[in-house]
């Protein structure tokens, strides 16, 4: 009981504020780098491409050039899969409809940055954004 009141935590102290500032600095710089500096550096040299896979088979490679399109994904290995993909004027891509039970892919929404991806696990479909040469991401997928 008395232990409770003597043990009342402080809101902040000098040491912890320094730790927080240091963390904020590190992640702030990382944020600045990956969202401002890095995109600015390769802005006009590299157009982003969306790579659409079924299992490990590449189905489509779509340039995210700002053209608005809506199309149905064709999966030769599994013709039952019904997925609708849209590319948008803001250089993004999304899965707009899917026959999968969880609809996680649809709820993922629009993605546009290299390294982002949309996964539809029930259908084994993955959309990854990368460059024209490589699908991007650090390849957790392998």
């Amino acid at each position, binding site marked *: 009981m008395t232990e409770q009141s003597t043990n009342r935590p402080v809101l902040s102290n000098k040491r*912890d504020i320094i730790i927080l500032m240091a963390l904020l600095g590190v992640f702030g710089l990382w944020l600045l780098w990956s969202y401002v500096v890095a995109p600015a550096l390769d802005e006009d040299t590299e157009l982003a491409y969306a790579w659409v896979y079924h299992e490990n088979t590449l189905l489509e490679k779509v340039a995210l050039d700002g053209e608005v399109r809506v199309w149905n994904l064709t999966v030769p290995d599994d013709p039952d899969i019904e997925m609708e993909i849209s590319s948008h004027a803001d250089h993004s891509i999304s899965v707009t409809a899917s026959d999968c039970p969880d609809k996680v892919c649809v*709820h*993922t*929404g629009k993605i546009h940055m290299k390294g982002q991806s949309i996964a539809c*696990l029930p259908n084994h479909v993955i959309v990854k954004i990368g460059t024209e040469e490589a699908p991007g991401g*650090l390849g*957790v997928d392998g």
Partner: protein
Amino acid sequence: MNQSKQSPPIRRAGGHQQITMLVLRAILLSLSFVLSALDHSLPSFVPGVPGMSLGLANVVVLFALLFLNWKDAVFITVTKSIFVFFLRGPVSLLLSVSGGLLALFVEILLWKLSRGKVSLMLLSAAGAMSHNVGQIIAYALYARVAVWILIPPLAVMGIVSGVITAIVLKAIYPFMERWFRTHRSYEGEGTQ
């Protein structure tokens, strides 16, 4: 006026204490449900990752950790994740439980290592960062995709929301201490 006939004095009733603690737990649990529901009714705050939540209910968990004990905090974390499952499905459950448990683990670790000397701000900021990062790592493992690009904004958001949580907790601290003083037994049944 209406002088009570036999209003049970708080000081003697061990049973009364148990009931008030039960009520407190029930209030915390329902508060965590409400905050989780609110959280999950907002669109995912990370474009490209479904089911990400801000972790509004973390304030309740941290509160339970400070005023009750770690078991209550774990119980609330797991129960609210199950609630999220009924609300939003398995992926949200996965993200909720991974983020929640990682945050709690980090908070307990900090609390124990510093022997309660860690400040509320660092405690809750570390918790919120872990909550966000735990969710994103769970998503990365689930969807088998790389998510490095999302870590910096999530960490920064975690620090900001953690500091806000700390301020809220600090503000209600005196009230809760008073509440505990009046509702807990005076016979020193121990703090656990």
